């Protein structure tokens, strides 16, 4: 299921690449070297809009800054006895929303010694599938009716939204998700580049503090 959704999303990305006047190789290189769809979409869109090189790199870097805290949070769940440290740096390249959200939910059920292998197989499979889908989307661009392409591009954020609904059961995550969802679009209007980072820091810190206060209150209540 995650593979199908991601495949469809990269299909949409492939056609976006072609419409923006980039080559198939550039589209595939972005899937290989970046492999984070929101950053890739920002790259393609800003390129098509004729933005400066600096503006493009800054926008991509800030859109993808979320990968830093995401990678931090994944590490304890990925810890596998006997796996060399450098492998975690290789594995980090395969941290993206789909692979991360599914791994965060499923890795605790995987036996400890198989965790790295499980992640490599899962994320690696998604990674390979996304190339095929990028190429197919590029080839199909223009052949598919416009509403279908739009639906494919829309599939990605809606899929992410549904995955995170599952996490609303957890108090700290729910606080962070709701506050972030409200602040994200607001701060994006203030500053399209730095808005997302500010959202993470402000909403994340607020959620953390609220959760901390809640813990203390509940702790005192049961005292």
């Amino acid at each position, binding site marked *: 299921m995650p593979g199908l959704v991601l495949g469809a999303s990269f299909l949409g990305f492939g056609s976006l690449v072609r419409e923006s006047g980039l080559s198939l190789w550039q589209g595939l*290189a972005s899937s290989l070297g970046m492999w984070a769809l929101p950053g890739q979409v920002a790259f393609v869109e800003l390129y098509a809009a004729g933005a400066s090189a600096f503006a*493009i790199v800054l926008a991509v870097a800030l859109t993808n800054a*979320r990968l830093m805290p995401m990678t931090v949070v994944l590490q304890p769940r990925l810890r596998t006895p006997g796996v060399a440290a450098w492998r975690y740096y290789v594995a*980090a390249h395969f941290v993206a929303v789909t692979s991360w959200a599914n791994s965060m939910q499923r890795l605790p059920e995987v036996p400890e010694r198989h965790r790295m292998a499980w992640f490599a197989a899962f994320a690696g499979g998604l990674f390979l599938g996304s190339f095929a889908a990028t190429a197919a989307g590029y080839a199909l661009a223009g052949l598919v009716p416009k509403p279908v392409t739009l639906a494919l*591009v829309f599939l*990605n954020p809606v899929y992410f939204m*549904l995955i995170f609904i599952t996490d609303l059961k957890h108090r700290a995550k729910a606080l962070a998700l709701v506050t972030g969802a409200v602040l994200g679009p607001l701060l994006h209007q203030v500053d399209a580049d730095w808005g997302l980072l500010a959202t993470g820091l402000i909403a*994340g*810190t607020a959620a953390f503090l609220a959760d901390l206060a809640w813990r203390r209150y509940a702790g005192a209540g049961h005292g």
Partner: protein
Amino acid sequence: MAEAGGVWAVLLLACLATYLSRGLGVLFAERIDPEGPTFRWVGCVAYAMLAGLVARMILMPIGPLAQVDLATRSSAAVAAAAIYLLSRRNLLAGLAAGMGVLFLMIRGL
């Protein structure tokens, strides 16, 4: 930006900037106690950024989706969430509902 070499250079820099976040994540994780408050705070920041990004992608998309009006995008997102919850968290049902609503509303039904 016009010549092809420039695009490749920008693409390479964008990829390096992306990996920087991931690599630093592994580096920092070695220094943070997974049971401690710092770790919980980083987790909250991660989820807040993800939710902010997803909300922005739905409400204020860049690219072709920007041509679709806000009411259509919101209706499709609400339909996807509602059907997902009503179908006891069936992803396929939720996504099909969201895509269906978007498709039909674009077609003008």
